[in-house]
């Protein structure tokens, strides 16, 4: 059962091994040179045997010198061979992993929103990093040792047969016996080690939780419970580890017994054979040497198998991701049918007077029980400002995600510039839309490099213009580096409000026809928020603007406001209309202008 499982796992791994193809030469040469080295090593006992039988027996000093010279020469050739092999193995392993990393990274970048939700970020990062390292080590070791060790073991046996068939039969018995012992212990201990790893994962979780939740744990005085939980897991780990230790402690003594008992028998048989005059004393010495070479190699092989198991496990984790086919390939239309439209710029300006249309759109998240959006129906004219307001989880962001093509609608139709969503490729669609995401994240680099994400070819004036609109020019100007000011990873060296404003500037620079602000001014004070809205209104390229917000003030002056509640549009119209006829809107508005409604 276990063997079948192992085989299946190795089989999955094959999918990633095709990336070794660029290193075919190295993959073949590395083990080959290893074999050469091993062959030379196998000659050594023969040379020593000759030294004894011919050199010492005949007291031939010249011959002994010659043999000594051969030993040194064998060493040098072996060194050259093995250095070559190590180089090829390293080159293949490192190159293979680098390529695999590229492929996986590229693949991840092409995943859709839904797929990212499903897979989860942190596991993808582990797969890109530590799993890759495991695979690299595994490939490297396999290329170096997987052929060498068995070759030496079997080579030694073959050599023994050339010396004396009957004595060599001992090898033929000892080697399978050893293999059974080594693999048996291995098979038994691998699941135990997996358990160790799982226990360690639990400890890791305990520790992480006690750090991230330090305040809550202390506030609720749960320190003791946490400690008990940790101790229980820690004890369990210790037990499993002790058990694993006891099992693997068998490895050395048992192999030792097998080899040395074989040695005793070998000497005994050898003695009989020498007595009968069939082999010489030197031949027995050679046989004894081969036996000890086998012992050394078996220990190496055992270590190798542990490394390989780990590498295979990691390789499978990588293969799993690679087996996931990206849903939104750039060159594939988003529609399932994929019917090519006649003209990719089929937006007849002046004719159709709508830029965005939602026609009875429904949407449910993967495996969700209920719809996140039901029957959303509206259309937008170019240049209009649309406000979207609603409570937590009412589906505001979902509308944005559908509009940007990040998730496909489950029912209904969305049209942008008169063209069906299904007829766009992801890239084409996003040529029309700039987004300011809810989470204001910047990337390591400079302010300028971040802004250029919005438009690579923007001039310096355009960059500053966008910063002005986003109300960010002031604090950028105060920086000594100006546009070249450094941005740390994830923009951590900027405050939340600054990050939001920079990410707004990043979107504005694109000067696209549609601008989407997804609850992206939450960290701004009311005055800045108002100034920003004014500036966006005055933008020269007159984009159609979608503003998603929880604040009534942010959307009050929109041409049309969509009011969402539990995934349904419960109101649509201008501020004044909604105040009159939409109960939900009234509630929202008054919740923010409670008792002070008069300020308006």
């Amino acid at each position, binding site marked *: 059962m276990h063997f079948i499982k192992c085989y299946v796992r190795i089989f999955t791994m094959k999918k990633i091994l095709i990336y070794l193809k660029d290193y075919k030469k190295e993959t073949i040469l590395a083990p080959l040179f290893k074999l050469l080295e091993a062959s030379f090593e196998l000659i050594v006992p023969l040379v020593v045997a000759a030294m*004894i039988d011919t050199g010492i027996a005949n007291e031939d000093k010249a011959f002994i010198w010659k043999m000594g010279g051969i*030993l*040194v020469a064998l*060493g040098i050739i072996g*060194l050259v061979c*093995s250095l070559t092999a*190590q180089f090829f193995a390293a080159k293949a392993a*490192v190159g293979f992993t680098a390529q695999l990393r590229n492929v996986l*990274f590229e693949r991840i*970048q092409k995943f859709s929103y839904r797929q990212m939700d499903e897979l989860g970020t942190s596991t993808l990062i582990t797969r*890109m*990093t530590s799993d890759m390292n495991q695979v690299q080590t595994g490939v490297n070791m396999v290329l170096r040792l997987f052929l060498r060790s068995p070759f030496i073991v079997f080579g030694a046996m073959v050599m023994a047969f050339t010396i004396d068939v009957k004595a060599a039969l001992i090898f033929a018995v000892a080697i399978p016996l050893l293999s059974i012992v080594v693999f048996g212990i291995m098979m038994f201990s691998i699941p135990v080690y997996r358990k160790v790893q799982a226990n*360690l994962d639990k400890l*890791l979780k305990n*520790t992480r*939780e*006690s*750090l991230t*939740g*330090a*305040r809550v744990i*202390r*506030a609720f*005085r749960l320190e003791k419970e946490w400690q008990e939980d*940790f101790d229980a897991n820690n*004890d369990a780990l*210790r037990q499993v*580890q002790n058990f694993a230790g006891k099992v693997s402690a*068998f490895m050395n*003594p048992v192999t030792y017994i097998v080899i040395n*008992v074989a*040695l*005793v028998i070998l*000497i005994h048989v050898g*003695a*009989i054979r*020498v*007595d*009968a005059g069939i082999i*010489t004393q030197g031949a027995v010495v050679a046989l004894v040497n081969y036996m*000890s070479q086998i012992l050394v190699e078996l220990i190496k092989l055992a270590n190798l198998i542990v490394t390989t198991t780990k590498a295979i496990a990691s390789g499978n984790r990588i293969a799993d991701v690679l087996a996931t086919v990206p849903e939104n390939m*750039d060159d594939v239309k988003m529609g399932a049918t994929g019917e090519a439209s006649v003209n990719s710029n089929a937006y007849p300006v002046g004719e159709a007077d709508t830029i965005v249309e939602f026609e009875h759109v429904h949407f449910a998240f993967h495996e969700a029980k209920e719809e996140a959006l039901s029957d959303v129906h509206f259309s937008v004219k170019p240049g209009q400002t649309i406000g979207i307001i609603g409570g*937590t*989880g009412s589906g505001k962001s979902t509308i944005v995600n559908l509009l940007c093509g*990040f998730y496909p609608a489950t029912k209904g139709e969305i049209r942008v510039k008169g063209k069906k969503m299904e007829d766009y490729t992801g890239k084409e669609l*996003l*040529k029309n839309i700039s*987004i300011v*995401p809810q989470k204001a*994240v910047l990337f390591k680099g400079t302010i300028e490099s971040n802004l250029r*994400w919005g438009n690579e070819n923007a001039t310096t004036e355009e960059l500053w213009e966008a910063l002005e609109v986003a109300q960010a020019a002031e604090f950028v100007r105060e920086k000594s580096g100006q546009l070249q000011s450094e941005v740390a990873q*994830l923009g951590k060296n900027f*405050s939340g409000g600054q990050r939001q404003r920079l990410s707004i500037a*990043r979107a504005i620079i694109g000067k696209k026809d549609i601008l989407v602000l997804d609850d992206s001014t939450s960290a701004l004070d*009311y*005055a800045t928020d108002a100034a920003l809205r004014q500036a966006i209104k005055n933008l020269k390229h007159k984009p159609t603007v979608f503003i998603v917000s929880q604040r009534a003030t942010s959307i009050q002056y929109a041409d049309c406001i969509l009011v969402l509640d539990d995934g349904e549009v419960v109101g649509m119209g201008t501020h004044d209309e909604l105040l009159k006829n939409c109960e939900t809107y009234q509630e*929202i508005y008054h919740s*923010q202008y409670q008792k*002070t409604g008069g300020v*308006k």
Partner: protein
Amino acid sequence: MKQVWKYLKKYRVLLLFSILLALLSVGLTLYIPILTGEALDLIIEQGKVDFAGLSGILQNMLIAIGLTAVAQWVMNVCNNYITCGVVHQMRKEAFANLNRLPLSFTDNRQYGDIVSRLTADVDQFSDGLLMGLTQFFSGIMTILMTLVFMFRLSVGITVVVIVMTPISLVVAAFIAKRSFHLFSAQTRIRGEQTGYIDEMIGNKKIVQAFSQEENVIEEFKKKNEELRAISLKAIFMSSTTNPSTRFVNGLIYAVVGLFGSFLAVNKGITVGQLSCFLSYANQYTKPFNEISGVVTEMQNALACANRVFEIIKAKPEKEDAPDAVTLEDVKGEVKLCNVSFSYVPEKPLIQNFNLTVQPGQKVAIVGPTGCGKTTLINLLMRFYEVCKGDIKVDGVSIQDMTRASLREAYGMVLQETWLRNESIMENIRMGNPFASDEEVIEAAKASYAHGFIKRLPNGYHTVINEDGGNLSQGQKQLLCIARVMLQKPDMLILDEATSSIDTRTEIKIQSAFAKLMEGRTSFIVAHRLSTIQDADIILVMRDGNIVEQGNHEELLNKGGFYHELYHSQFKH
């Protein structure tokens, strides 16, 4: 090292036993080639085999083999037991201290770093320790005892072997130094790459929103190529160690063979002794490779151990005074007397602050983002200690009461929602471990969380993801509120507790809170001023200082910073 010994001391008898066993097994292991050699000397040629002598030797060999195997096994088990015990103890102590450390310790460090100290570093240390125990001693003993055995056989050849030993060491050291530099370079570049991966995969959605996939992939390939180049060098360099030392060993072997043969020709030694010597030459050089490996491993292990000790040794929060009182029947009078506080001495924050809160009063703390509102909460809950002055609850200094009873008196909802990787039911139950399922559901209803919980795949038994990814920020806040609703605390702290909840639900929750807090003292940090207008005392903070204090009307009339804040809300 001394600290490591502290943990090992407990096992010193076992340790001694293990060393004795190592001695025994090494001795026996080395005895076998001698027996082999003696046996071979009895097998001279046709008709010249001493079977009687041979069987005696072979019997001895079998006994030696059996003893060695047993000794090895017991030694391995002992070492493993010791290592597991030490590591277990270290983890336990580190974790225990982690829960006692002042929050300033963890706040200033990356969580990932601390986590890896408790997991990866301890593991690395245990590997090193185990390797040290099993290989270091037996390695050194093998070398010493081999030398003794060899000297007894032939002084000449032994001297040759000793003379050649340094070559192997020099070669290994030379390579180790080079590969160390390359490996540190590799670590650095790999770290940069991991950072990039973290950024770009972690924010993949934004990359996609800006259609930057191609550029990001290009950039990644560049970084990846850099890593590939350095990795190749590092790995190749380090992998030259084995072939090189093996070559040196081969040389030693050849020289021993050569010398031995000449000696044998001159009848200095027998052929059996020569075979014995050759196998010693092999055994003698092997530990050198191992020991050089073990030494690096041990250095690494000690470095890791030190990182763990940093946590074990870090100064924990001050213990509760032995005569500390338990806060009971809390009335809720809170008094801050001349309180001064700063996170770093160079940047004074709160200075000489005085405040008296009567039982049942509602205190609001307002101000722009990052002005230090949370600081006050940290002091009230005693997550941080005041630098000067005192805080009193019901007339008793919080220094003189147990932390547990102080914290029990408060119910707390923070902006940073934190939930366990457990079911929703268990998460809410954190507020009161003795609450029944019905009470939990009641609390969820009171906090308007019942509606969305019901719609989750498994209702109250839905398990929350490790990073809470299956819930929205607002939903998480609702659960945290339910937790406090269940707790029914004597006093309440709300730190932006409803910041991610929509205003309509917020108002409903506010009224639930109002009911809960009737007659109870509460502290509320708020972003939206509308929610705190009815507070008895409003503290206005700016740049870490409390700049104004009073109720809504007073502060508005004053026309100061509060006035400014209040009106900025309504500017269009």
